[in-house]
């Protein structure tokens, strides 16, 4: 399990990085950030990039910047940096809930948030978060920078809208207003394994009624998805166990599963129900 040969580049600027990407796009140039997904794929020779462009030496990419309404997560920000202390309030709590489920500590110290997006695994917690909160991806090439909505970025199982000569520079996540309730549930075979099923639920309550409900599911679908039927049901309703049960059922019924499978449908319902019920 030794990787095939490649040429290694460690650019010091983003301009150099995207120039290298453009120059070697034909030879399967790949960006190396944390490497926690790509390096094993290379060890198994499932990936054989001709060029690796290591972006870890580019200043600033490891920065998290937080404004009143959004967080910008640089391309080299590690999973471990996104713990509960990265942001205050419900948004920070949600980050903490998710971060805890991403593999294990020695992976979290190296793997990056943006790398998870670039790999677009169906079981990625960060892809789920981006979809749940309407995040956007900042992608850059020699042609310039563009912003891509998470919904448009994640095309399917391990497929994204990123062009071969493009790299992710940062992810932008809208934060959640104070008072928002956040919940997350994940089922995996063992602690730290890829999710078989997971769900995020967030909502606020105003005058006893639910506002701004967001439900997103992952693992059971080829890419993270929102559950519009469940959100519609929740919107304006009074939160109670029966409502949550019905919303979970709606989410499961309408989920475009990777394959028709009563077990996966049931897992979907379980995850949504527990994310909703656990939201605090």
């Amino acid at each position: 399990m030794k990787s095939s040969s490649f040429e290694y580049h460690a650019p010091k600027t983003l301009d150099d990085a995207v120039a290298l990407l453009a120059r070697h796009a034909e030879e399967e140039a790949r960006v190396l950030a944390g490497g926690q997904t790509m390096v094993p794929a290379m060890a198994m020779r499932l990936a054989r990039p001709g060029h690796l462009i290591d972006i870890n030496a580019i200043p600033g990419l490891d920065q998290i910047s937080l404004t009143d309404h959004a967080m910008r997560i640089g391309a080299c920000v590690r999973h471990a940096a996104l713990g509960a202390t990265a942001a205050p309030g419900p948004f920070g709590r949600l980050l903490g809930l998710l971060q805890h489920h991403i593999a294990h500590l020695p992976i979290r110290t190296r793997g990056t948030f943006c790398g998870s997006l670039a790999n677009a695994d169906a079981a990625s917690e960060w892809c789920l978060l981006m979809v749940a909160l309407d995040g956007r991806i900042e992608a850059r090439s020699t042609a310039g920078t563009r912003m891509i909505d998470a919904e448009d970025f994640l095309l399917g199982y391990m497929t994204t809208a990123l062009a071969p000569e493009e790299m992710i520079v940062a992810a932008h996540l809208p934060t959640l207003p104070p008072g928002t309730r956040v919940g997350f549930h994940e089922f995996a075979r063992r602690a730290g394994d890829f999710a078989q099923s997971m769900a995020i639920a967030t909502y606020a309550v105003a005058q006893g009624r639910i506002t701004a409900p967001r439900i997103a599911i992952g693992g059971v679908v080829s890419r993270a998805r929102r559950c519009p039927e469940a959100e519609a049901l929740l919107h304006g309703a009074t939160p109670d166990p029966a409502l949550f049960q019905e919303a979970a059922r709606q989410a499961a019924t309408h989920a475009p599963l990777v394959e028709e499978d009563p077990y996966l449908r049931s897992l979907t319902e379980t995850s949504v129900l527990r994310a909703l019920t656990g939201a605090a």
Partner: protein
Amino acid sequence: MNALPPAKGQVIGHSVTRLEDGPLVRGQGRFAADVNFPRQIFMRVVRAQIAHGHLIAINTEAARALPGVIAVWTHADVASIPPIPFRATRLQGLEPYCQPILAAGRVRYAGEPVAVVFAENPYLAEDAADLVLAEIEELPVLLDARLPPAEFAPGTSTEPAIVRKQFGDVDAAFATAFDVVALDLSVGRHSGVPLECRGAIARYDAAHDVLELHGTAKKQHWNRDEIARLLGLRPHGVHLFEGHVGGGFGVRGELYPEDLLVCLAALRLGRPVKWIEDRREHMVATNHSREQHHSLRAAIDAQGRLLAIDAVFHHDQGAYVRTHGARVADLTAAMLPGPYRLHAYRVAGHFRLTNKTPAATYRAPGRFESTFVRERLMDAIAARIGVDPIELRRRNLLASADMPHARQLDALGTDVVLDSGDYAGLLDKSLARFGWDALQAELRARRAAGELVGAGIGFFVEKSGLGPSDGVRISVDRTGAVELVSGAASVGQGVETVLAQICAETLTVDYRAIRVVRGRTDRIEFGNGAHASRVTVMSGSATHLAALEIRAMALATAAPLLQAQPDELTLARGHVVRIAAPETDLMSLAEVAAHMGPGSPLMIGRTPGLTAERWFYSDHMTYPYGVHLAVVRIDRGTGEIRVERYLVANDIGRAVNPMLVEGQIAGGVAQGLGGALFEEFRYDEAGQPLSTTFADYLIPTLAEMPALDVLVAEDAPSPLNPLGVKGAGEGGINGVGAAIASAVDDALRKPGAITTLPILPRQVHAMLPR
């Protein structure tokens, strides 16, 4: 028999720390990959990507052309080497099914070696291996051992043998039975999967005309003899060395194609050759195990007592017969009756080949499987006649008064005679320790509150201490240093410490001052290695006998020098002392050894040296036994099974080092949990392996471990050896599948629901009440 008194000794029976640990915690271990020789080259195996087909051609040109590649071999290059043999049981006719070291004309499993590449470094070797192209014309695959046998090769079928055993009049028992209980059960394909993959490093030392093989384990002497025979060498010119071994569990240390290939290459290419298996290779190349399908019927009386068992099973051996021959099927058939009184028994084990990785033994081979089957049966009988499963077992357990109990069966060529045991006594102790009665009340309350919780039991009988013999040589040098050379091997279980403890007990020296040599064919002529929980019984007994002889020699030598009779003397603190005045050291073992040197006047005409070699012989195995108890909780939403609490009670006659015994049991439980709930080598319909990484083959982590309690019992010492010991290596894993299946049934409130291992959340979820 010079039996050791049953009481705790000065060293034996104490949980002393291990001799092995110092270098291992410092990073100074010497595992296979840590062995390097100047000018070594690296071997990489090219493996079949297709499960079954005719090998039409292998194109090696591109690989040979790569700079740094030294050689590329296919079957044509090694055709003179016979296939890898097996250690025989009484079963005949397995020879045509042995594996050639490189596929000959036909590939029979995905992962089968079809070519090897030798190159200057491992990266390059892998580059070159990628360039070797095997052209294979696909044939239909056979992936289910229950299907009718197919053709293995012209003239031979995929059913090499049927293991048959029988006693009593089975048909008569069924004819008069009160009732008959029938079950169909399956155990999934999983295996030892040690953390260290295999490795083999060979070099030919022309100066001494010796072929060395490093990275070996378990069965060095047998392997040496076979390597010599297959390569046309003299056994004395082949030395096998054991360094540190990163877990054995049955699979490591068997003779595999790669061991012979590195030896052959070292001879032919004139350079040391190193091969280190990678994890993806390991998952398709190293022995699988366990996959069996059982159909059985039991004839019972009105009280649920067993009258007869009529069992049929299909053993999925994979593509070839390996070094164990039909051992797993043989042990399954022999051990299935377990701890219960049984008047008639008939078993037919269909030993069948399929297009999967070859299988062999994994810790508690044939017992993990048969305990699952037998204990499922006991639960089913209890449910049928409406009696508590514990009570049902009590009615059937053999009594202490029945011991020794001859089963009228043979296992591994020896008659099964259960040597000692108080089965009901250990059951009582286990239930009391676990708080079984209070637990039942607690579970009722939790169920009433909506939880899916249950408790289960598995009773097992192990076997250990397989003979026929093992020898140990102990030498004391003129500095008083003690060296113990054994034909045993170590796979990481603490052999050195245990043998040193036994030796130290008699010699009254510090066990930490004893050097234990094992796993080296150049230091002792014969040996039977480490497997089947045999080392403490066999090599431990030999150690005891050799130490007694050293003691006798020392006292005989010292007596005239001290103007005493030998029987007035004994050893204390490593010194000869008078029994009448044991506080006064008269002469150290070092001084005695000095008097026994080749120049000593005392030794004229005698063989010099304070050295003794003693052999222990056994024609019967010992039979440890025990109880597994489990509490599980099922998640209604996902079907996930959490094992909350677990107890293993294991009677092993005598625990030389209780801490090590508990360690063996805890490790066994974790592996058993894997086989019960997580681990499985899966294949798609084309025979492509689907469990080739640690992301697909799920080994339990700390997070999956239950709260574990271990009860090491010493109520029934073995009468078959001077220490009274029985093996402790396999009791921890033996009953896990049985106990967890029983507990899951209980949690589901559906007796008999669980019929297959591993128990998957998806299946459990489908069984949940809606």
